[in-house]
């Protein structure tokens, strides 16, 4: 048997966390270096995995499978062209989060880093698992560290937000658990590869789809169950917001591809109008809400809801462009929203205010920051040359194939997106420097500069040259669409 590279990716952060547990909590430098070291090693492993990944095959690769619960569930992990990008995204964002704790986390640093590393394990696990039960374990397990991250290190209303986050997500997920168990009894297995081959009886699909949807819709989050997200984002510490926006939300989008559409094609086809409607509401409504926010983090949180609306729209077009666009948009949003939350974190650490009105004229005192924030703003609104553009463009292309009206309304969202982001930028960076506190503000320090520059570079680089991403997933997506169409055609033939 080959070296279990995926399992080591999953386990390494946990081992690091265990190691941290035994370090004296006063040894702050040691704690930081250990966690940083572990997460960077993990990033390198994932890059290596990406390099040796065979892009011309749509099969799951590096599959590991062993008996876990006897006669019941196997531990099975592996990656394909879709999931590997999310793993790289996770391992890329986590070290940045760890770097950023320097200024934002004052107390209980050790526990915080343990929580972040455990989170990394769980997030990678979600993207690798090839068994529904294993997936559920990782998916739900993330609740515990995230609850603590928001609740212990969050802002003033942290308790309310932590509870809301926890209970909303748990409520959505228990229905998914019922669906997972039902699938086991209907199909006799929870192995995803086998389920793809066997298919699930169409007469059960609608209910199962709804059960999965209830979980993913909360996590995505889709309108109208998105209300936990602004609260959670606003109260979470910077690193928590970044993880939440960049990766946790992607779990649901990934779940839609892998499970909702992959396992229940007939039901997905049936629910397309439903998804389109709530995605459009999410895009337009939350963009309008975002326009009216006076809290920076809240504004970005609402923009996340709108962007994830684009993602669901793209995924449910079932066209090559739409699905690829959805995946690209998720990666792009992962980088851009992480960057935006880091940027808010930078000024929040200095002034302890997130209110937009407290800022203005930052360009006079923080030129470097202003330039980088410009890149992120443009990335978020989807200017050509940034990653945001490619995702939205592909999604709209895919949507036009399906329905002109939907695409036209969705395009309106792009304009609104530009409006709230540019207005935010104008109010924060330009204008008169009226707030006296801001006079003494210092520009980015080295760590912050390197985090933000790295993110800005990746936004621009992959904006001009998206091939590394698109080459990785295109074969898998093509196969995904073909299988989907085959299953739908088969179903239609049987019903004639």
């Amino acid at each position, binding site marked *: 048997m080959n070296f279990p590279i995926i399992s080591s990716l999953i386990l390494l952060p946990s081992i690091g966390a265990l190691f941290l547990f035994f370090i004296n909590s006063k040894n702050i430098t040691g704690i930081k270096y250990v966690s940083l070291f572990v997460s960077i090693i993990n990033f390198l492993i994932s890059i290596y995995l990406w390099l040796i990944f065979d892009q011309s095959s749509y099969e799951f690769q590096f599959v590991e499978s062993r008996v876990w619960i006897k006669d019941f569930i196997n531990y099975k992990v592996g990656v394909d062209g879709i999931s590997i990008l999310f793993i790289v995204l996770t391992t890329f964002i986590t070290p940045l989060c760890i770097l950023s704790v320097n200024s934002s986390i004052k107390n209980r640093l050790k526990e915080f880093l343990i929580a972040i590393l455990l989170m990394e394990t769980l997030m990678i696990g979600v993207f690798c698992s090839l068994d529904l039960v294993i997936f559920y374990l990782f998916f739900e397990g993330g609740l515990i560290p995230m609850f603590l991250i928001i609740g212990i290190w969050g802002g003033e209303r942290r308790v309310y937000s932590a509870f809301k986050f926890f209970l909303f997500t748990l409520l959505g997920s*228990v229905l998914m658990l*019922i669906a997972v168990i039902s699938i086991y009894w209907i199909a006799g297995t929870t192995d995803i590869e086998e389920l793809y081959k066997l298919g699930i009886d169409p007469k059960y699909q609608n209910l199962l789809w709804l059960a999965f949807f209830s979980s993913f819709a909360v996590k995505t989050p889709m309108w109208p169950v998105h209300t936990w997200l602004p609260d959670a984002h606003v109260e979470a510490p910077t690193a928590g917001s970044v993880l939440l926006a960049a990766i946790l939300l992607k779990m649901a989008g990934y779940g839609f591809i892998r499970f909702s559409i992959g396992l229940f094609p007939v039901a997905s086809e049936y629910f397309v109008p439903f998804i389109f409607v709530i995605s459009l509401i999410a895009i337009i409504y939350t963009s309008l809400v975002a326009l009216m926010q006076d809290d920076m983090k809240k504004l970005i949180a609402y923009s996340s809801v709108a962007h994830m609306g684009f993602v669901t729209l793209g995924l449910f077009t079932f066209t090559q462009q739409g699905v690829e666009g959805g995946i690209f948009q998720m990666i792009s949003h992962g980088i851009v929203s992480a960057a935006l939350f880091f940027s808010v974190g930078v000024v929040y650490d200095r002034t302890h205010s997130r209110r937009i009105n407290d800022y203005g004229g930052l360009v006079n005192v923080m030129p470097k920051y202003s330039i980088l924030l410009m890149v992120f703003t443009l990335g978020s609104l989807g200017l050509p040359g940034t990653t945001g553009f490619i995702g939205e463009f592909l999604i709209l292309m895919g949507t036009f194939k399906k329905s002109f009206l939907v695409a036209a309304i969705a395009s309106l969202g792009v304009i609104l997106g530009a409006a709230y982001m540019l207005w935010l930028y104008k109010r924060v960076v330009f204008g008169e420097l009226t707030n006296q506190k801001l006079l003494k503000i210092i520009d980015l320090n080295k760590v912050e500069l390197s985090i933000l520059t790295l993110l800005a570079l990746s936004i621009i680089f992959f904006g001009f040259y998206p091939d590394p991403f698109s080459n990785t997933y295109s074969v898998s997506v093509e196969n995904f669409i073909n299988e989907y169409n085959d299953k739908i055609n088969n179903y239609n033939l049987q019903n004639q």
Partner: protein
Amino acid sequence: MINLFYISTEIFLSLSILTLLLIGVFKNKSELFIYNFTCIILLVGLAININLKPEFPIDLFNNSYKIDYFTTLIKSVILISAFLVMLCSLNYVKQNDILKIEYPILILSSILGMLVMVSSNDLIVFYVGLELQSLALYVLAAFKRDNILSSESGLKYFILSALSSGLLLYGCSLIYGFSSSTNFDLIYQNSESIEYGIIFGIVFILVGLAFKITAVPFHMWAPDVYDGSPTSVTVIFAILPKIAALTVFINFLYGPFLEMFDQWQAVIIFLSIGSMVFGAVAAIGQKKLKRLIAYSSISHMGFALAGLSVGTNEGIQNSIIYLIIYLIMNIAFFCCLFMLKRENQYFDKVEDLSGLSKNHPLLSLCLMIILFSLAGIPPLAGFFAKFYIFTAVIEQSMYFLAIVGLLSTVIAAFYYIRLIKVMYFDEQKEKYDLNHSIGLKMILVISSTIILIYFINPNIINNFVLDITLI
């Protein structure tokens, strides 16, 4: 010739009880000695019990006493948990002035009663065991006799329990009347045609047993009794009688009444849904940890009953796994309660946990793991317990039960994470003492570790129950 070898555990316990009584009567200041000796007796009893390993079911005393793999397993579980309970409550017992010679002896007699209950294959034997168990527990509940709450809880427990025993006896007599036997096997043979008298009898027996495991709507005594009794007795209430009574549930339902599955299934589902939902909702407003854990155990019993209601071997096995994980979590939880003391005064209010994580990081870490596990969040053991139960439930397409059960876990999660919030997010208070006995610390750390790493190899615990085949 009756093979007495197979009941050597019971014989050994009875002889030890008598010997300890003699020692207690004739020797001055022998309390601590008797307490420690009881722990050893439990361990020896456990060793004897494990050593039995019956290859095939054995019937004793004219088929009124049954020894098989299932009963032996449950007896071992009872003995181990009794040992752990005794070990972790030693300091509490010493400091609260309840270390009298009767205390360990009463526990031993109640355990003897449980062992008899578990093995009984006859209504009369079963009743004798049940009463031996309950009588000892009444006294234990009121053991802090100068304390008004403790006396109240003892009295309350006694009166309500006597009422339920009455109902149970009435049920037994109905069964006897309509099936003309008290032996389980004969009842099974004689009750093939469904007679309403027998159904009435079953309902009365189920009511009596539901009372013992605090299933809704026969739960009303639990919070008061849990709260009033000394904590060292509460932990016994929370664990031991429930294991025994649930086993008797299984023995009854899947023994003499198996043919009437259609009749009793609805009753069990009703008990189960009621307990799950009520336990979850009622615990939200509680301010005392012991009351809270009482409601939480009501809700947990609902889940165990859900496993029994499906009528398959998997259902029974999963209920037993649930019970084992439940008792690990409860023992660990009570260990934490025993650690909340300052200058020999014990604390049991929710607000006493405030800011615990700053002063006692390890204790609060353990308690957090336990609470998340009680709430059923993966990947902790509590999640698997529920997962197995619902696997069995959904296999029989009982979706309503599954959905209600899982939604009640969301409600229950609220009050568990409220405790975590109090520990981790609130302001800290004074420190608690750190001079705990090594046994207490060991039990807490080991049980929390088991809860935490159960997912790595679930088969270790699951293998115990695989051989239980009652149908």
